[in-house]
């Protein structure tokens, strides 16, 4: 099962693979000559309740907070298999009050020149089987259509009918991480 998903499409993970214990979500990008753009890209995950809000600031997983308190979602310090960043998600450890795990990308506001995600040549996300890194699904190139955006909700891994599904979101924000944090209730 390898599905290439467009924005808004989803795939049933545990329905298709009943023994699935979790996924590794990989994010990869191509910036061309824009090296500074790549240096300022940050991948993060938010553990959200049924209302789509983060349980707390401790449930924002990124380079400076490598795991949630239950260690159900962890950012890997070294990504493999061609991904630039990877997040590991263990389904049995996800707190019961968490309904969805949202993976996002943002440009950190830095001291350098301002950039936008419109300069990305490629950005994609994929889901791998946690047990053997077998690829289960991947998104289309989400860079198409980006312009002045400085943050992007990439995908969601969410509970559905007692199992878990994977959905490609691809929704951009011109308000950067502030906009994302506001939508998902992450206190900055």
């Amino acid at each position, binding site marked *: 099962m390898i599905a290439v998903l467009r924005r808004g499409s989803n795939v049933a993970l545990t329905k298709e693979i009943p023994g699935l214990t979790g996924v590794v979500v990989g994010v990869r990008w191509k910036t061309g000559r824009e090296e500074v753009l790549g240096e300022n890209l940050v991948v993060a995950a938010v553990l959200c309740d049924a209302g789509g809000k983060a349980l707390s600031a401790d449930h924002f997983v*990124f380079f*400076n907070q490598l795991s949630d308190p239950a260690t159900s979602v962890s950012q890997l310090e070294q990504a493999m298999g061609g991904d630039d960043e990877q997040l590991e998600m263990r389904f049995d450890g996800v707190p019961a009050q968490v309904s969805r795990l949202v993976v996002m990308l943002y440009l950190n506001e830095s001291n350098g020149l301002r950039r936008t995600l419109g300069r990305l040549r490629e950005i994609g996300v994929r889901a791998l089987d946690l047990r053997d890194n077998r690829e289960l699904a991947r998104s289309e190139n989400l860079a198409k259509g980006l312009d002045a955006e400085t943050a992007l909700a990439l995908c969601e891994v969410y509970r559905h009918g007692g199992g878990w599904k994977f959905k490609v979101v691809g929704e951009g924000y011109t308000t950067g*991480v502030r906009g994302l944090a506001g939508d998902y209730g992450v206190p900055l």
Partner: protein
Amino acid sequence: MVILSRVQSGVGLLTVEAGRPAARLGCAYVLAGGQSSIVCHSAGIVSAPRTGRNPMILARHHKLTVDLGQSRRLARLIFYGVAGVGSLVVTTFGGARIEAPVAGPNAGITVFLSVYNVDGELVLRAEPPNAAATVRNACDAYGFDRISWRDEDNPVA
């Protein structure tokens, strides 16, 4: 003393600004790799690292900004200047505002604020008002002993 959360310590810019235009406002830093120097607009050192397109610390007149996207490379900082500037205002990316009192003699260099990176959380502490004769003396007093100095106020380029 104020402890920023890991999110506050790792997102956007941390801005440190003198309440009024300050004389010789600057900061000394130590990176996780051990490199150490100062950033001070009036001394002509406006960024750290001094070269590159993505500076971690940038000085503009009476304001310094720290890129927290690089906070894992940062070990500690002190902010200094000539006292009598009123207050030092620290603003997080999310808009939290912390005012540090600026007191001390109107001559000499006073360290106003220290910032320590403790396992990903930035700890900000207002420092007691003790003036040193030079920037070098002030840095030495806070253990910034890896800076190579050209003179009493300027490091080797």
